[in-house]
C-alpha cells in the first residue's frame, strides 16, 4: 500500500520511475504532485549540472561554412601524444591511432553549453541506426500522437511525412525523436523542451550535420541529417518548416 511517505521516498531514489502505481498515487495526492513537480525541476537541473562540457582538441576552433554560419566540430582529430613510457613501441602506434580517434590529447574544456548538447544529440543517433531508413511508409497517426503527447505538442501536416517516432530517454527526460522524410533523404528531429540554447548551434560531426535552434518558451529543436555533404541551407529550411508546424498544447 502506497502512502505519501513511501511515494516520496521512492521518488527520491528515482524521480523518473515509471511505475504505474506511483503515477496513480501522484495524481491522487495534491501535495505529492507538488513535491514531484519540485523534485523533477531539481532533477532537470541536476542532469544539466552533471553534463559538464567535454574537451575538444585545442586546434578544433570553430569554423564558418560558406553561408557564414559558425559550425562547431565537436571532436576533430588532434595530434597524438605518447604519455606513457611504460608502453611498448607497438602500443605507441596503436595508442596514437586511438588518441587521434578520440581527440583526447591537447584538449580544451569548452565553456559553451551548445556544443555539449550537440554532442549528446549526435551520441544519441548512434544508438538508433534503424531510424535512418529511407521509406515512404508513415508512422501510424496514433503512435505519433502518443510520442508527442507527453511533450505537449502536436505536428501539423506541413512538417512532412514522419516515418519514425519514438519517445527517447535523453538527458534525463523522455523526448520525441522523429524522422521526417524529405526530398534530400531522412531528417531527424528531436524536440528538446528541457534544453535551452541562447542561439542556433550548428554542428558537423561523426557523419552528422545539423542545427539546434532555440524555441521560445519550449527549449530547443535539434534537426540533423546524415552525411557531411548535406546542405546547411536545406537543414535550416527544414528546421524552420518543422518549427512552424509544431502546435504547442501545453
Amino acid at each position: 500500500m502506497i502512502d505519501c511517505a513511501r511515494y516520496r521516498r521512492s521518488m527520491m531514489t528515482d524521480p523518473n520511475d515509471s511505475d504505474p502505481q506511483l503515477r496513480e498515487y501522484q495524481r491522487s495526492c495534491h501535495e505529492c504532485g507538488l513535491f514531484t513537480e519540485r523534485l523533477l525541476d531539481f532533477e532537470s537541473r541536476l542532469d544539466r549540472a552533471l553534463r559538464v562540457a567535454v574537451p575538444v582538441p585545442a586546434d578544433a576552433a570553430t569554423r564558418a561554412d560558406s553561408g557564414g554560419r559558425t559550425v562547431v566540430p565537436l571532436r576533430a582529430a588532434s595530434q597524438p601524444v605518447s604519455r606513457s613510457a611504460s608502453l611498448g613501441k607497438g602500443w605507441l602506434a596503436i595508442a596514437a591511432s586511438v588518441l587521434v580517434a578520440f581527440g583526447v590529447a591537447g584538449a580544451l574544456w569548452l565553456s559553451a553549453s551548445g556544443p555539449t548538447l550537440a554532442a549528446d544529440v549526435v551520441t544519441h543517433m548512434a544508438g538508433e541506426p534503424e531510424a535512418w531508413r529511407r521509406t515512404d511508409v508513415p508512422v501510424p497517426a496514433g503512435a505519433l500522437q502518443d510520442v508527442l503527447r507527453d511533450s505537449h505538442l502536436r505536428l501539423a501536416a506541413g512538417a512532412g511525412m514522419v516515418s519514425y517516432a519514438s519517445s527517447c530517454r535523453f538527458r534525463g527526460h523522455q523526448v520525441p525523436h522523429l524522422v521526417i522524410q524529405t526530398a534530400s533523404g531522412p531528417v531527424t528531429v528531436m524536440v528538446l523542451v528541457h534544453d535551452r540554447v541562447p542561439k542556433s548551434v550548428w554542428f558537423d560531426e561523426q557523419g552528422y550535420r545539423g542545427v539546434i535552434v532555440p524555441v521560445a518558451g519550449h527549449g530547443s529543436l535539434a534537426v540533423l541529417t546524415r552525411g557531411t555533404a548535406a546542405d546547411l541551407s536545406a537543414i535550416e529550411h527544414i528546421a524552420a518548416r518543422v518549427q512552424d508546424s509544431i502546435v504547442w498544447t501545453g
Partner: protein
Amino acid sequence: MKDQVGGNQRRARFQVLCQSLRPDLLRFAFWLSRDRALAEDVVQETMLRAWKAQDSLLDEAAAKPWFLTIIRREYARSFERKRFVTVDVDELIAREEPMLAVAEEQNLAEMRAALFKLPDEYREPLVMQVLMGFSTAEIARELGLSGPAVLTRLFRARKQLRVLCGEDTSLDPQE
C-alpha cells in the same frame, strides 16, 4: 587477407563505439575524481586498455558498463599512485572554478559546487543513475552493493544535495 579486412572493420566499429561513449565517460570520470586533468588521464588510460582488451567485449550493448568498470579501476590505480591523503573540497572547487562556472545559469554552478561536497559513496551512484542511465541493479553490480543499499545511497544523495543547494525541503520525506 579476409581476416585482415574483418579485423579492420571490427577496429573501426570499436572506434565509433568509443567515440560515441567518450563524452559521458569523461563526465563520469570528472565527477568521480572531481579533477579535470585527472579525468582526462583516466579516460585516456581507459581507452588504451579498452583498445587492448576489445576482444573481451562480446556484446556492444554492454559497452557502457564495460567501460565504466575500466574507468573505476583506472581511477583506483591513479589514486594509489598519487597517494592522495586528504581532499580539501573548497580547494577543489576553487581549482575547478572555471569549469564549474561555465554553467549557463548560476544555479547550475551552485549545483556543481554542491555535487563536489557530496560524499563519494553518494555521488558515485547518483552520477551513474542520472548521467549514465544505469538501473539500480546495474549500479549494485558495479559497486558490489545490494539493491536496497543502492536505493538508500540514492535517497541520501538527493536529500543532502537538496539541502546543500538550499532547496525547499518542506515536503521531502524522512528516511
